[in-house]
Structures are given as structure tokens and as C-alpha cells.
């Protein structure tokens, strides 16, 4: 066995969930053609991402909105995976957040996350 290319690219949880769904990991273990470990991974990731995941289109609009901030690739993936709702959480996702961005920009970031990643059709309550 040979590793041809170790890291072609980072994947966000949503993209992995989409691939697992293609492999029928969301169906019952008896009828699904996915392995039990894939079903386990699907359930665990789905729980972490709050019950639903976004498709490539929605993620792309979010990534385009983030362009003016100049974030690295893995910081964008962090934001998509964790959907921070407060300053403390944004600080965990992005390195040196306080020195690189001022308060207004961080507010903008939080609003963008809220708009693109948190507004799900079935969750009516907003995080205050």
C-alpha cells in the first residue's frame, strides 16, 4: 500500500456528512450499504452539527462572504464546524483573534456565522 498524496485538502464536517449520506449511512443498519462504523461516524457528526448539515452551495456563499477577513483555510473550516456564537468561541476558532480584528469586525463575523450557518428551518429560537 502506498500513500500517493497525504493531504489533498481539508474537509469540513458538512462535506463528510454529505459523502456519508451518499453511502446511505443515514439509513437503518439492516438495509444500509454503509459499514456500521460509517453509520456511527454519521450519527456522531450529525449530533455535533446540530441535526442538519449544509450543502456545498450554502458553504460556498459563506466562504465568499469571509473573503475580506483574510482567514486561513483551516480557520474557515473551524468556523463551519463549530459555528461560534460568542466572542469566547470565535477566539478558540481563530488564532490571535483579538489582535487581528477589532470588535466591529468580530461582530460582523458572528453575524455572518449566525446568518449562514445557524439559521436552520426547524430551529426557531435564536441564541441571545
Amino acid at each position: 500500500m502506498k500513500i500517493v498524496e497525504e493531504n489533498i485538502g481539508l474537509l469540513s464536517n458538512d462535506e463528510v456528512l454529505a459523502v456519508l449520506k451518499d453511502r446511505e449511512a443515514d439509513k437503518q443498519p439492516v438495509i444500509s450499504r454503509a459499514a456500521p462504523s460509517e453509520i456511527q461516524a454519521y450519527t456522531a457528526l450529525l449530533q455535533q452539527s446540530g441535526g442538519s448539515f449544509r450543502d456545498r452551495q450554502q458553504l460556498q456563499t459563506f466562504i465568499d462572504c469571509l473573503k475580506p477577513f483574510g482567514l486561513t483555510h483551516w480557520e474557515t473550516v473551524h468556523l463551519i464546524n463549530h459555528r461560534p456564537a460568542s466572542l469566547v468561541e470565535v477566539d478558540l476558532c481563530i488564532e490571535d483573534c483579538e489582535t487581528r480584528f477589532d470588535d466591529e469586525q468580530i461582530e460582523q463575523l458572528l453575524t455572518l456565522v449566525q446568518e449562514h450557518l445557524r439559521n436552520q428551518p426547524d430551529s426557531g429560537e435564536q441564541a441571545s
Partner: protein
Amino acid sequence: MFILSQLEDNVRIAPQDLGKPAELAISAALEKAFLDRVVPNLGLVVTLHDILSIGDGCVYPSDGGAHYKVSFRVIVFRPFSGELLVGKVLKMTRDGVYVDLGFFQDILIAPGDMPEPSYWKEDDKAWLWRMEGQDLFFEQGMPLRVKVQSVDFNAVPTLSQQQEQADGGEAVVGSKSRPFVPMEVKGRADGDGLGMVHWYVADDEME
């Protein structure tokens, strides 16, 4: 958390599967070999992404199966240093707190990487963080945030190493009391926002 990797491997299709279309038989063989396994120095293979190319089938003397050289991509779980992970507390021992991600359970927060000052409470079998006079407990089964410090890959122990351990009186790697861990993630919970999630929710509500 996840990366896409391209691998190349020789896959043997058993004679009874030669009637199936090549892609199906090869996918089945790849899934059996790679899913939920750790590739050394790469990570835990979660799922097969796609098959890029299948070489010509070769047949070897006295073997009824056909051998194909397959190039394919897999989704691998490989956290990078400094990455934020959210998981549940699996169990707590004197060695630290074990974090469970659902599909991966070998993340350990050593006592040195817990928020200062932290104490091990023997009666509750739990770790706690004493902050400003308040005792904040790590609770089993509850979500927590941890930052990755390092990812280590351990080589499969050889028989001679296991013999040495048995002779030396320590638990043998690969036995029930000391299971072999192919991929170990060391995490830290000493930082702003890290640790149990409910510690920070309570703070916001109080303010």
C-alpha cells in the same frame, strides 16, 4: 478534522467475486481492508470517497483470484495541532480525562494540560477545576471542548517487545489491561473557552 488522501493498493478479488462488476467487488474489498482502520502516520480512515483508477487485472500461478492495482481516495480523520474538537467525556482516571468523539475515543487530556489548578477527587472518581473558590467538575458523558496538542502514531508491538514487558512485570501492550492504541491524540483544556461546555454557559447566564 478530516482530510482527503489518495492511496494506492493492490486488491485481490477472490474467484467467487469475479462475476461481479469490477468496481463493486473492488469497493467491497477496499472497504473491508480500510474502513475504521488507522493507516500509520496518516490517520483513521472514515470512509471511501471514490476510486480514481483500476489497473489491469493480473493473475498469478496457483492463485485463482485476480489482482488489481487500484488508486483511490479516502476521507481520513486526522486532527492537526491547534485544532478545536468538541466531544464527550468518556471516562476519567488518574491519568487524565478521556474524550469521546463518537467514532474516535483515544483522545487524552493529561493532568498537566488541565486548567490550573485541577484536582483528582478519588471518591467521585472525577477531575475538578478550582476556579475562584468554585469547584467545577468534569462530568462523564457531557460535552467538552479540547484543543489538540499532538497526534502520535504507535507502531504495532513486536513479540520480543511484548516478551520484555511481560518479563519486566508491566502490563503487556495488546492485552485487555493495556490495549494497543494505534493513534493517540493529546489534548489540552487549559485555556479560555476550553473544558466543559456547561462551565461557560453558566457564566453567560449569570452576567
